[in-house]
C-alpha cells in the first residue's frame, strides 16, 4: 500500500503568538516549530499500517526550506521518502492544489493528514484534495483500519462517533486517538539524513484568500476572586454582573 502523509510546520502549541511588519507577518523570533500535532497522529498511523502490512509512506510538505528539519523528523520516525513543494503555504486552495498535483503523478491508496493545521485551523485541505481528486474524504477520523482494499473508520461527531466503511483510495483528516505519537530513535535520526527528500516547484499560483492584517485578542481583565467560604456569591455575580445565567 502506498500512503501519502501531508504534514504542516507550525509554531509549537505553547507559543505566545505575536506579529511584526505592522501586524502583517508572524513574529518567528524565538518560536519553535513542530509538526502539526494532528499531522503527527496521521503520520504515526501511516507508519503503523506500513509496519503491519508493508508498503511505503511518503511525506509531503508545502513550505519553504525552513521546514526541512520538520520533514527530516518525519523521515526519522519511519517515512520512506519526502517531497517538499517549495512555496509558502498561505492559502488552503493553493496548498490543496499542490497536494492534488503530487497525488495525480503518483497513485496513492491513502492520503492522510491532520484534521486541521494548528496555525490557521481551517480544516479544509483534506476535503479540497478529495474533491480535486474525485475520491472520498473523511474527517475527523479517530480510528482507521485497512482490510484488503476497504478502509474501516471511526469519525467523531457531536456527542459520539460513527463507524464508516469505504473502498480505497481515500483522503482522511486524522485526530487522536488514531495512533500514539512516535518518537524518533537514534537509528531513525541517522537513516533520515540519507533518505530522499525531493524539492519540487509549485503548480500554479492561484490563491483564493489573502490575509490583510493580523490582530491579537484584547487583553483579559483581572480575575475576580471569590473566597471559597462565600462560593455561592459566584452564582449571584454570574447572574447580575456577568449576566450569563
Amino acid at each position: 500500500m502506498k500512503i501519502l502523509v501531508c504534514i504542516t510546520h507550525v509554531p509549537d502549541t505553547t507559543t505566545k503568538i505575536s506579529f511584526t511588519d505592522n501586524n502583517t507577518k508572524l513574529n518567528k523570533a524565538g518560536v519553535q516549530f513542530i509538526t502539526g500535532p494532528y499531522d503527527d497522529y496521521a503520520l504515526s498511523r501511516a507508519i503503523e499500517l506500513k509496519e503491519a502490512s508493508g508498503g511505503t509512506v511518503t511525506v509531503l510538505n508545502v513550505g519553504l526550506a525552513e521546514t526541512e528539519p520538520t520533514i527530516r523528523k518525519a523521515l526519522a520516525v519511519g517515512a520512506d521518502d519526502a517531497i517538499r513543494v517549495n512555496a509558502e503555504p498561505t492559502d488552503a486552495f493553493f496548498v490543496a492544489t499542490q497536494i492534488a498535483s503530487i497525488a495525480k503523478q503518483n497513485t496513492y491508496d491513502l492520503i492522510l493528514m491532520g484534521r486541521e493545521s494548528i496555525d490557521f485551523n481551517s480544516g479544509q485541505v483534506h476535503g479540497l484534495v478529495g474533491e480535486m481528486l474525485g475520491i472520498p474524504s473523511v474527517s475527523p477520523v479517530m480510528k482507521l483500519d485497512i482490510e484488503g482494499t476497504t478502509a474501516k473508520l471511526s469519525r467523531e461527531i457531536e456527542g459520539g462517533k460513527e463507524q464508516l466503511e469505504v473502498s480505497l483510495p481515500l483522503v482522511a483528516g486524522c485526530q487522536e486517538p488514531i495512533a500514539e505519537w512516535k518518537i524518533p530513535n537514534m537509528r531513525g535520526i541517522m537513516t533520515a539524513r540519507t533518505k530522499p527528500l525531493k524539492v519540487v516547484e509549485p503548480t500554479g499560483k492561484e490563491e483564493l484568500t489573502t490575509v490583510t492584517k493580523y490582530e491579537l485578542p484584547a487583553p483579559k481583565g483581572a480575575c475576580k476572586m471569590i473566597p471559597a467560604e462565600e462560593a455561592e456569591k459566584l452564582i449571584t455575580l454570574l447572574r447580575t454582573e456577568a449576566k450569563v445565567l
Partner: protein
Amino acid sequence: MSILAFVEIAEGAIKKTSQEAVGYAAEVARMRNTTATAVVLGEIASAELENLGRIGAAKVLQAADSRLNEGNIQAYANVLAQAVEKENAEVVVLAKSSLGDAVAARLAAKIKASLASNAVELPDTSNGFIVKRSIYTGKAFAYTEMNSDKKIIAIKKNVYTPAETENKASVEAFSPTLQEADFNVKIKETVKATGDILLPEADIVVSGGRGLKGPENWGIIEELAGALGAATACSKPVSDLDWRPHHEHVGQTGIKISPNLYIAVGISGAIQHLAGVNSSRVIVAINKDADAPFFKAADYGIVGDAFDVVPRLTKAVKELK
C-alpha cells in the same frame, strides 16, 4: 444573487448553531441587498422549517430525501453545490461542526469558493469582502480577504444572535440529483448520546480536570451541569485516562468551544487547554491551587476544594430557579 445558510438537524430539531448561521446569512443578505435561503437536508417536520423565517430566512429549500437523513459528507457537498447553482448564491454560511467543516471543504472545491473558517464577525464589505476569523486556536485573528466570486463562511458559535421576527419562510421542495458515488462512504453505525446537550451547541459548559481525582467523582460536575442546563466537558488528561469519552475533550487537540459561560473545575489551565476555551464569553476557574494558570485567563475564580465548592454552587443555582 442570494445568500445560503446550511442548516443542520439534531434529534429532529434545527441546531442552535445553525440558527445563528441563518441569522448571520440574513444579515449578509441585507448587506448585499438580497435575501437569505436556508437549505435543509433530510426529512424534518415542516413546522420547524417555516420558523426559520423568524430568524431571517426568506425561503427554505428542503431536500426531503431519506438518503439525506444521515450526514454523508460527499452527498451533502453535492446537494449544496446544486443549491448554490439553483439560487445563484454568492455566499454560503454554515456553523462550524464535525459535519459542516468536512462538507464545506468539499463544497469549496466544487464551486471554487474561498472559505473562511472560524469567522467571528460579520464580513466587512466596505472595500472588497473581508472576514475576521480566529486563528492559532484562538490566540489571534486574521482579517481575510476573499478573492473569489463565491464565498463560504463557517462561523464560530456565539458570533451572531439572530433577531426574532414574526416572519414565516416559504418552504420549497428541492430535488437534487444524487449519484450512487455520493454514498461510497457507508455509515455502518452511529453511536451517539441522546438527550444530552451537545457540547458545541451548549451555552454553558461545566468542565472537569484531573483535580477531580477519578471518573467516579464526576457526579458533582454532572449535577452542576444539570442544574445550569449545561453540557459537560473535560481536559485532555481526563480523556486520555479514559475517565470521560473523547468527544468531551476540549482544548488545542480537542473540541474548541465558545459558550457564554465556561466553568473549569480542577483544571490547571495549561496553554493547550486554554486555546480550546478562550473564546468563551465568561470563564470561571475553580482550583485548590491559587497559582493555577487558569486564574490568569478567568473572569471569576474560586480557590478551594472542588468537592466542597461545586455542590454548594449546585445548591445555589437550584435555589435561584
